[in-house]
Structure formats: C-alpha cells, structure tokens
C-alpha cells in the first residue's frame, strides 16, 4: 500500500461525500424519531422473529447520534464501526473543506484490494452471527 499526501487543497472527494452523507444521517437520527414512523422496521424480523444482516442499524444511528457507543455496539457491532467511520469522515470533511487539510490518498494493489474485500465479507458474516445470537439466543452472551 502506498499513501500519498497531496498539497493543501479543497478538492471535493470521496471522503467529503461520505462526510456529508454521515452528517445528514446522524442529524436525521439525532432529531427525527425514525423508528417510531409507521411501518418502519424489519419485515423479516417481524414475520419470522429472525433478524436480517441490517437489523439494528436504525438503533445504531440513533444511539451513536446520542454518543451512546455501548448501546450501539449491542445493537450491531459492524454498524457501530461504520457509524464511527462516518463520524471521522464528518470531521475530516470539515477540516478538508474549511481549512484545506489534505486527504491522504491510499493506493492498494489488486491483491491488497482482494484481501480488504475478503476481510469485510468475513466481518459481515461474523457480525450477522452476533446479531442472530443476540436476538435469538441472548442467554449465550449473558452466560
């Protein structure tokens, strides 16, 4: 992996886009009770009792926007990590666009990209396992 630090700039990039997305998402979660909207919620969980891989993400956004990290971790650990990365992106975007702080550009080889994808896929599977155990078999975690 090669990391390159460009000169100070305000060129709009991917991290800025993620920062704006994260800022809007966290502001919505902070001020709008999304989970209380009619028909909101996971249809799979409602009908079968089994969670889907994305179950808990609304609670993650809600709790992370109130800085309740342990509560968010309990709802969906990978979602919590993603929300934290979004928060970092928000701060980085402000620094980049307001103060011209340069964003590092990381270049990965195809082999490194392959392992990044494999790692993310494995983490997603492990995370889903945690969500299933937490929802269906909570006694396994408490014991």
């Amino acid at each position: 992996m090669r990391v390159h630090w460009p000169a100070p700039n305000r060129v709009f990039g991917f991290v800025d886009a993620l920062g704006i997305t994260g800022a809007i998402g966290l502001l919505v979660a902070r001020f709008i009770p999304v989970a209380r909207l009619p028909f909101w919620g996971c249809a799979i969980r409602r009908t079968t009792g089994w969670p889907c891989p994305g179950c808990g993400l609304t609670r993650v956004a809600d709790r992370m926007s109130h800085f309740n990290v342990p509560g968010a971790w309990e709802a969906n650990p990978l979602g919590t990590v993603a929300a934290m990365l979004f928060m970092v992106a928000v701060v980085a975007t402000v620094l980049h666009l307001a103060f011209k702080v340069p964003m590092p550009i990381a270049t990965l080889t195809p082999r490194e990209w392959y392992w990044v994808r494999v790692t993310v896929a494995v983490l997603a599977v492990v995370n889903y396992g945690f969500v299933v155990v937490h929802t269906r078999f909570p006694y396994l975690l408490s014991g």
Partner: protein
Amino acid sequence: MTTAAPGPGPLNRGPVPWEERAQRGLFGAFFENWKMVFMQPEQFWSRMRPDGSLGDALFFGWICYAITGLINIPIQLVSSALNRGQMDEAMNALKDLPPEARKLAQQYLTILLGGGAVGAVIGQIILYPVILIIGSAILHLCCLITGASKNGFNATARVVGYSYAPYILGWIPCCGGLIAGIYTIVLQCWGIARAQETTTGRAVMAVLLPIIVLCCCAVVAVIAFSAMAGAAAAGSGASQ
C-alpha cells in the same frame, strides 16, 4: 466534435458540450449535452474526462431534475385534487393504527393533499445536489466493492450527474418516471464502464448492487410472510 465507433472503442477524451458553455452558450450546451447523453451514450461516455469538473456534472443533473420538478408541480396539484376522495378513505382506514402512528400518518396525508406537495417538490429541487452527492458516495462504495474504481470518486460522481439526463422525461404521467429511472440505471452502467475503464460486468454489478440487496431483502420478507401466513391458515384449518 470527436466521433467514436459504436461499441467499446478507443477513448477520445475531451470536454463534453456542457463543459463548453462559454463557446456554445448555456442553452445550446445544455441541449447538445442532453442529446448526446440520451442518444449517443457510447460517444458521450468515451469522450467524458474522468478527472473533469465535478461541479459541472452535478449542475447538469440538478438542472435536469429541476426542469422535471417544476413541470411536475401543476401536475401534482391536479392529481392530488383528483385523488382527494381516495385520500379521505385512507384517512378513515387509519382508525386501527396506534394513536401516535395515526397522528404521524394523518400529518403526512395532510401534507400530500395540500400545498405541502409543492413545498416538497421545491425542497427536493433545492436539496438535490446533496442527494446527488450521497448517491455518488453509495455508488462509489459499490464500485470499490466490485473493483470498478480505477479513476476515483470524481469519475463516479460525474457519471451520476450526467446520467440524470433522462429525468427530463420524468414528468410524463404514468410511465415517465419508470422509463427515466430504468434508462438512468442503463446510462450509469455504461458510464461507469467507460469512466472507470472497467468491464461492463463489473460496472453493472456496481450499479445494481444496492438494488440487488434491496430486492433480496424484499424477496426474503415476502417468502417469510407467505410461509407464516400459510402456516397460520393451516393451523386455523386444523383446529376447526
């Protein structure tokens, strides 16, 4: 104008008509650009520079959406007046909901019935650049997943901006939105393949990944719901 042979030929990069507004004039450049995206997508995407101005592309997409939005305002007002009876029936059908949910749904329907529809359209037009940026971020994440991100976020965002050209037809009642939506997806697949210099398969996977995930969730939910309903019906039949 640069010409290119149909099919995945050589990439003749250069400014697209919209980026030559100073020479062509605002309306001429917009019309030429729209025509090229809509009618000659292979030439357009082969010509579009991945490292060109992000603002130009997002501005073009914004104008396309704004035109449709403004045309839609009178159509929405007429259709909401025509659908008032159905809305009243929907209000009556909300009796079974919990009080809090009913209040929220009633507020939503009231907004839909009145000038709120116009306000919502104007709000969408104002916020559309942000929506374009969020859409670009999601699409670029999918490009990273499928390995179609050679030329970076700028190329993806430019494809998203220019691919909104069909939305000018979105105001056509009944089928306009559907046709515009489908053709936008086609243009995005095409544009990602050319702008990111990747295979069509990877580009299609990147564009369709969010749709596939949503469809899988919906299919699983429908199957689960059907199975539960079937089991419930069988249970009630056995108990009689």
